[in-house]
């Protein structure tokens, strides 16, 4: 074993340990913000593994997309909906927890047995390509052309859908429309009515 291999093994060990620890943290922490931040740690560790696999472009893309976009969005959602909720402790909660743990450990045992027992059809050791970028590009424009193009339709639709769900619709006020002047429709925002300060004896309820 030369120096480079040793460094690779050590970095693999560190990255794997980091990833498992962070992933456990994501699941086990009570505070959801910690889970979200640790999720970023998991993503970064995975990108480290990609680098060890000579997939430099995928590693950078992993950081850009998962850490820079997905995780930031998750954090945004958590921080904007930062509502303190007091949960009543359920009696016998430990039974549920134990059952979940049992299922998870069982699944883990099954999958690890599978990984160890299966004779993986490993091809001959692959030499690192000259440029992963060119390789990926060639795949994108030959055998994976169709999924690549379909993904653009998928993303377009996801974007439109997200806008539809997030936008506030202007709908015609039905009461106003049915009154004397049917031509002049009053548009208002049905969602998020203006928050009224709760004054005593206020009958000025909008809905």
């Amino acid at each position: 074993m030369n120096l480079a291999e040793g460094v690779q093994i050590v970095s693999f060990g560190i990255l794997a340990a980091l990833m498992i620890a962070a992933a456990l943290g994501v699941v086990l922490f009570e505070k959801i913000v910690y889970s979200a931040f640790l999720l970023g740690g998991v993503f970064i560790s995975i990108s480290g593994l990609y680098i060890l696999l000579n997939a430099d472009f995928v590693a950078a893309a992993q950081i850009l997309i998962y850490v820079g976009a997905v995780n930031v969005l998750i954090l945004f959602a958590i921080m904007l909906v930062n509502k303190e909720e007091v949960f009543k402790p359920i009696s016998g909660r430990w039974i549920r927890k134990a059952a979940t743990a049992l299922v998870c450990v069982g699944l883990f045992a099954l999958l690890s047995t599978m990984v160890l027992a299966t004779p993986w059809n490993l091809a001959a050791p692959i030499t690192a390509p000259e440029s992963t970028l060119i390789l990926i590009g060639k795949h994108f424009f030959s055998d994976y052309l169709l999924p690549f193009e379909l993904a653009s339709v998928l993303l377009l639709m996801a974007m439109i859908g997200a806008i539809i769900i997030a936008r506030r619709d202007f709908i015609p006020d039905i009461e106003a429309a049915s009154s004397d002047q049917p031509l002049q429709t009053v548009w208002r925002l049905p969602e998020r009515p203006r928050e009224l300060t709760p004054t005593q004896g206020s009958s000025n309820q909008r809905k």
Partner: protein
Amino acid sequence: MDFSSNIATQLNAGAILPEGIVVVTILLVLICDLIVGKSSARWLPYVAIAGLLASVAALWLKWDATESLAFLQGFNGDDLSIAFRGIVALSATVTILMSVRYVEQSGTSLAEFIAILLAATLGGMFLSGANDLVMIFVALETLSISSYLLTGYTKRDPRSNEAALKYLLIGAASSAIFLYGVSLLYGLSGGQTNLDAIATALANGDGGESLGLAIALVFAIAGISFKISAVPFHQWTPDVYEGSPTPVVAFLSVGSKAAGFALAIRLLVTAFGAVSEEWHFIFTALAILSMILGNVVALAQTSMKRMLAYSSIGQAGFVMIGFIAGTDAGYSSMIFYLLIYLFMNLGAFTCVILFSLQTGTDQISDYSGLYQKDPLLTLALSICLLSLGGIPPFAGFFGKIYLFWSGWQAGLYGLVLLGLVTSVVSIYYYIRVVKMMVVKEPQEMSETVENYPEVRWSLPGMRPLQVGIVVSLVATTLAGILSNPLFTFANNSVINSPVLQSAKLTQPIAKAGISETSDRPIVQ
């Protein structure tokens, strides 16, 4: 450029012409809506319908194409895929017919609804022909994500929100499980994503009967069963069907399911050919559970949409019989039944939509005495429900007979008997609704029906609804009597598809290699 011209000659891109038409229609709908504005809602649905029909016509032209593989084996446009793509596209067409008025009345914009529905159709069509793991997954996600969006489309309705969230969470989990299973397949075959290549690699290598393959199989089936909502992966179905907009439910119960079945046939028959014993066994269990649970729980439902949800679970169970049979007759009976199911189920949903547009309710008890007020609606709904139950002169009867016959031929006696028993159960709950509508005396009319307004077909968006009802009514009635062309079509699509034919050739060999002591022959 050497590379690009070299690739371009091998693409055979004409095979996805029907999907290309759908993509163009999506863009057309979006851009027209953007430029013209609200007033385009009057004619946009017809643009979409024209596009879908053009796509079906293009599919017809591709029938029996000499070279079915396209995009370097990434997509297989054989006749089997054409049948399923046709079913998906037709179901979307009928769905658009019934959704025009519904979406208008719910106060949401129509153009985006149609665009998302078309995207879901596109995903379903690509899924029916996908021959590559990456393609399968991307197409599956296109279908799923569009379905989630459609489910939550009426966002001011909290039930729709709930349905969308449930569907999204369970769907994401099942996608993840499916992806895990498929990635195992990638590893077992030594880095192949093409289904044929995987089959070859698995047959040559020693990964053929390993634990890894078994787990891959179970995970893949979990993902597929979610799409076709087979018990025990059905939990989302009733809630989602109840909460989401009714046209979406109609599409989910026909188009999405047909795409799921197409995926099941292609993935399991091709890539998992080595373990066909195992997946036949798993699907037998799924079919038994679906038929029993779907039909029995449907008995207890009071909401029409929930009842149709459980009935669709049961119907999926029936269709699985044809799949398990694994013969030519089995597969073609699946296609035949799905084609008929398309019209009768969509017809039923169109009637439900019309009723709920008129009255605002979908409780079964509110249908009582409808005959006096709206004979057309009563007639259409009765015939569709009776056909779903499998009462003779209608199409559903012949579909079921064919399914059961092919199952019986293949030696699935227990399954067929169970199917017969559960369809008797299903007849009970279908007839209950019919009896409610037709037989009641005038004084027993429900309050809703008493206030039933006159149907004004001249209102915007009502005409397509009427067309939808009439078309599905005619199709359901006539497809039974004049079923021969459909029959030949389904048969040909199976016989002309090399995937199924070669699977049948290799299956006995593979079986002989795997389990010589097996005493339960699948193919007789």
